[in-house]
């Protein structure tokens, strides 16, 4: 089968999954709450797949193997990061769910604007996080481009493929909303699991003769890849691991699209069950990292890290399996972009347009949000193609930037009633400026410490000091009250 035919079949099947998922999820999408957070009624199984789909993306499939291939054991940070985030989520997400249901939040900016009694702060957070999220879509577009480049062998232009794929995604989101995305996620996750298991089993057998021989080769031929710091990334040592995992673990739920999944759950207990079960997903990451290590020996060094998995698959698998792998990889790139686009659209319509023009009805906001999906998806594609350097710079600092929301949202939003809007804004700006300066000037890590965590420390100090020096924002409730409501909802 020619590369062109493999790609075309993969594209058709991918489009089929996107359209079918969008169509299946179309019921219950008659208003913004239904379209965006499924009327806060998503059960454990669908939520598990939705969260899994958003967190385990094209980066997991392609980028993570590239990370262990180029940077060795430092790649394990990504396994640790999510599990620390799930431990944090165990209490934080149910609290956000309780407050969201009580006060009618459907976006992160709703939460900020109400908690700090400041529509201006809500607009500021909405605009800035929407910008960061659009850049984040680039990760997925880059993943898609790698599929066209490596598996397609140049038979379809990556630009044409990306435009087609994201046009279909935009239509599927418009129709199916978050529920449709969750249904697409089931297909995407199952296919991705199958593809990872297949490559994880076939690689040791084909290149080494079995798992035992592969592990022996790891220890004898590339032992320095399994040490911190590894020989290929000398600045990523133990201190970097601790501070990076802490920073990214705290930052994970500050991404507006992941924060928003807290609102989709049926009960707070659903979210606590997710925190217990989600770590099982990490086994997939360990398998992908292992493939990256194996690629060092099987393919040699010097290849583009992001292409390693695709190259191995092209070399090892028959055509019919390659078609399914193409579908899995494409869905891993496309489906996670759905909630990002939806969240960006809702932030702009509900937290910017409706605030600036209060006469806008909820119905108009709902339709504006849906329609905005198309220009936002287009904007992400155009930005990626026209100014890739801008995207690269934003992505470089993106995780560190969203983590700076942690003090204002988690500390001030849930636990500390003394927090003020001035404190949140001052801390946020301090963190963002420090992040920009340190990361864009190439000073990360700083003496082995993740630069984002240094910015977060400065952010927290400023947040506390300025809050204590100003009047507390009134719209808050005691943590004990939140716990009582959580207990009542969990009964």
């Amino acid at each position, binding site marked *: 089968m020619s590369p062109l035919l493999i790609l075309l079949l993969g594209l058709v099947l991918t489009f089929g999954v996107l359209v079918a998922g969008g169509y299946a999820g179309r019921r219950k999408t008659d208003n913004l709450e239904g379209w965006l957070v499924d009327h806060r009624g998503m059960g454990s199984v669908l939520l598990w797949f939705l969260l899994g789909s958003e967190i385990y993306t094209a980066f997991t499939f392609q980028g993570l193997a590239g990370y262990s291939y180029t940077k060795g054991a430092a790649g394990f940070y990504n396994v640790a990061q999510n599990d620390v985030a799930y431990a944090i989520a165990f209490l934080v997400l149910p609290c956000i769910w309780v407050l969201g249901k009580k006060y009618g939040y459907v976006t992160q900016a709703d939460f900020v604007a109400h908690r700090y009694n400041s529509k201006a702060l809500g607009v500021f957070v909405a605009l800035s996080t929407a910008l960061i999220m659009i850049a984040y879509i680039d990760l997925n577009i880059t993943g898609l481009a790698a599929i066209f480049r490596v598996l397609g062998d140049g038979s379809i232009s990556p630009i044409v493929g990306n435009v087609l794929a994201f046009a279909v995604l935009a239509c599927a989101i418009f129709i199916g909303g978050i529920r449709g995305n969750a249904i697409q996620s089931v297909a995407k996750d199952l296919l991705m699991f199958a593809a990872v298991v297949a490559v994880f089993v076939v690689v040791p057998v084909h290149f080494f003769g079995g798992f035992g021989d592969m592990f022996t080769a790891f220890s004898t031929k*590339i032992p320095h890849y399994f040490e911190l710091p590894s020989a290929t990334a000398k600045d990523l040592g133990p201190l970097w691991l601790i501070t990076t995992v802490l920073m990214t673990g705290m930052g994970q739920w500050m991404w507006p699209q992941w924060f928003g999944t807290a609102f989709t759950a049926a009960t707070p207990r659903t979210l606590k069950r997710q925190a217990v079960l989600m770590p099982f997903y990490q086994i997939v990451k360990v398998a992908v990292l292992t493939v990256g290590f194996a690629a060092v020996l099987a393919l040699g060094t010097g290849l583009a890290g992001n292409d390693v998995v695709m190259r191995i698959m092209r070399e090892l698998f028959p055509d019919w399996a390659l078609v399914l792998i193409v579908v899995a990889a494409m869905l891993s790139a496309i489906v996670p972009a759905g909630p990002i686009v939806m969240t960006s659209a809702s932030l702009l319509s509900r937290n910017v347009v409706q605030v600036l023009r209060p006469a806008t009805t909820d119905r108009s906001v709902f339709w504006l949000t849906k329609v905005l999906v198309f220009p936002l998806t287009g904007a992400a594609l155009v930005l990626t193609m026209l100014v890739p350097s801008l995207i690269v710079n934003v992505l470089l600092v993106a995780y560190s930037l969203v983590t700076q929301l942690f003090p204002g949202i988690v500390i001030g939003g849930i636990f500390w009633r003394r927090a003020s809007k001035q404190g949140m804004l001052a801390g946020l700006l301090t963190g963002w400026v420090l992040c920009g300066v340190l990361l864009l000037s190439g000073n990360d890590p700083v003496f082995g410490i993740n630069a984002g965590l240094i910015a977060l420390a400065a952010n927290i100090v400023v947040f506390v000091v300025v809050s204590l020096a100003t009047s507390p924002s009134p719209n808050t409730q005691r943590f004990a009250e939140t716990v009582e409501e959580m207990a009542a909802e969990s009964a």
Partner: protein
Amino acid sequence: MSLKIVGAWLVLNVVVLVLYTVIPPLLFNDGAGRILGMPEMLFWFTLLPITIPGLMAMLYLVDRRLMRAVQRGGAR
């Protein structure tokens, strides 16, 4: 009661962070060393994703007991 809930949660957070970030460089940082045939660090990071859900499940049970106490007598 809410202090107990936060306390249990914080303990779990610290335990997960230490298991993932402090233990590997201290005890599993010899690339040539092997456990069950695997490089030490790979072994540890394979073990944790199947161990952590057990720890989280323990917190879940503790939390459920505390939540029932809150339902009966309030959070304070």
